[in-house]
């Protein structure tokens, strides 16, 4: 267990070069609150990005293999495994799947609720690392950006960086996933624009016991 925790921390330290001291205040008075929906036009398209990075990685691997062949050096096959770009990309796509964000922010905390996903919660009074049942998670202000970090077993790390345009017209969420043993992380930028939540046709509630149950316009149907 100690070794696993150490591994988690090593990965954590390696992933975030600009992670600031725990407990950094919201000096820029950034406010993310509101309802936000995905702007497909401005957001990264996962398949395109995966294809692009795959081609890049393959070219890089071929060059590295060529150099290794010429010099007779050993090259870690994991580094040359370009297929991992696809795996990492697909995993990132799943992790960054939210299309709607509902953000409530107070002076002392923020709750970022995401559709079909868990809420990212940050208590500004207790920023820093917290251990949960399976990994370690934390949040911090990095200047005017809010960052969340999750470190899970097997060297899997997820890093969310939230930034907002000065005119509050867009929020960018950069989701970076890194796996130990794979030298390149995968980042997906998802851009969200504000919207007024109206009376939708369905009102859905998630409970762990009943899973998701929906009612038509808030009535039981």
């Amino acid at each position: 267990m100690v070794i696993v925790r150490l591994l988690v921390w090593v990965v954590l330290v390696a992933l975030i070069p600009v992670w600031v001291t725990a407990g950094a205040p919201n000096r820029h008075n950034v406010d993310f609150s509101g309802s936000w929906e995905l702007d497909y036009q401005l957001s990264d398209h996962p398949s395109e990005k995966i294809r692009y990075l795959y081609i890049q990685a393959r070219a890089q691997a071929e060059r590295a293999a060529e150099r290794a062949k010429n010099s007779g050096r050993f090259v870690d096959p994991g580094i040359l495994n370009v297929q991992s770009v696809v795996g990492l990309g697909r995993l990132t796509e799943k992790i960054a799947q939210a299309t709607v964000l509902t953000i409530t922010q107070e002076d002392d905390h923020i709750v970022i609720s995401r559709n079909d996903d868990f809420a990212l919660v940050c208590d500004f009074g207790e920023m820093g690392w917290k251990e949960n049942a399976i990994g370690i998670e934390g949040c911090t202000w990095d200047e005017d950006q809010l960052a969340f970090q999750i470190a899970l077993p097997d060297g899997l790390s997820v890093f969310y960086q939230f930034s907002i345009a000065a005119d509050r017209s867009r929020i960018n969420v950069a989701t970076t996933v890194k796996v130990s043993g794979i030298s390149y992380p995968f980042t997906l930028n998802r851009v969200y624009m504000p919207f007024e939540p109206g009376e939708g046709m369905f009102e859905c509630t998630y409970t762990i016991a009943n899973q998701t149950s929906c009612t038509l316009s808030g009535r039981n149907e």
Partner: protein
Amino acid sequence: MNKLHGLAVVALVCFLEGCGTPRADPGQSSLPDPVDVALIVFQDTEVRLARLNLSIAVFDVESEIESSIYSAKIQVSSVERRYLPFRLKETLDRAGFWGAVRVMPQTDLNSEINVTGKILFSDGVELKLQVLAVDATGRVWLDRIYHDVTSDLDYSTDPSYQIDPFQDLYNRVSNDLLDSLGSYTKLDRDLLLNVAMLKYARELSPETFGRYLSEDGGVVTLNGLPSEDDPLFQRVQRIRESEYLFADSVDQHYESLHKQIGPTYAWWRYYSYELIEGNRKLTKVDATRGATRGSWYAMERIYKTYKESKMNEDALRELTNSFDRETEPTVADLAGSVIRLTGTLDRQYEEWRRLLRELYRNETGY
């Protein structure tokens, strides 16, 4: 670079000290083996003696103060401190040796037997409870730490709130209380009933009833009894009955919590167990069969489990908040008037006791 260096120091300190809320590391502590404990239940052939009432106060939580209000653990603890006493109450009811067993928002110092508890640790794999039971005379029946661990068998089917993986622990508490009860003769029981009633009377009117009891170092001695037809004492008994009726209503709130949040809590515990056990198994797999590490299937599985546990925490947080906010008002009958009490159960209970004291003063002039 300085920032990176700073992070490394923070990470190292956190690693060494264990960041976040303290949690026993399953990998570092050796757990006792799960033990099956059968609940001893009342047999019809046993001699029927006066049944003593038990009051179980909502449990305390060890790390409550240190935890953040937004941390999921505190939300779970908030449920557990009200949910677990109800499990104990159910077990004691099933055992059948007791009168009314009630879960109360506060410690009822005037009850015949008062049970308090503190949740020292709870994560789905382990439950550690400190239980203290003291009777009206101040005699300690039980002051023990109970520790139970679950096994795969406890979670072999979908979790159900009706089947508790820690039932053995509640059975043990019930059996231990029964051990103490066994040494109580009919006379002892009658004494306890009288002391409990007079303590209540003394609280309402120390001037009238204070002389019947003396107290030394927490031990209460009965000096005498008021006459059976003493009108003041009869009033006290009526008011005590009213308080019991209210207590029954409070008890229904906890039963409602049990039914409402039970399935969710059972799933949370199941996930927590799965996460911790899965984590432990993953560690073993990594140590012995390195080849399984790093597969995309394993990565997805880890993330999925984490996501489910977090969504579970979200659901519990919402449910707990709504329980706190939407505690139904209690409608109670007091001397012919219908009283509507609102606010948290804790506040309702305080208000009810204040009204009862007021009623007594109005009726008696004391």
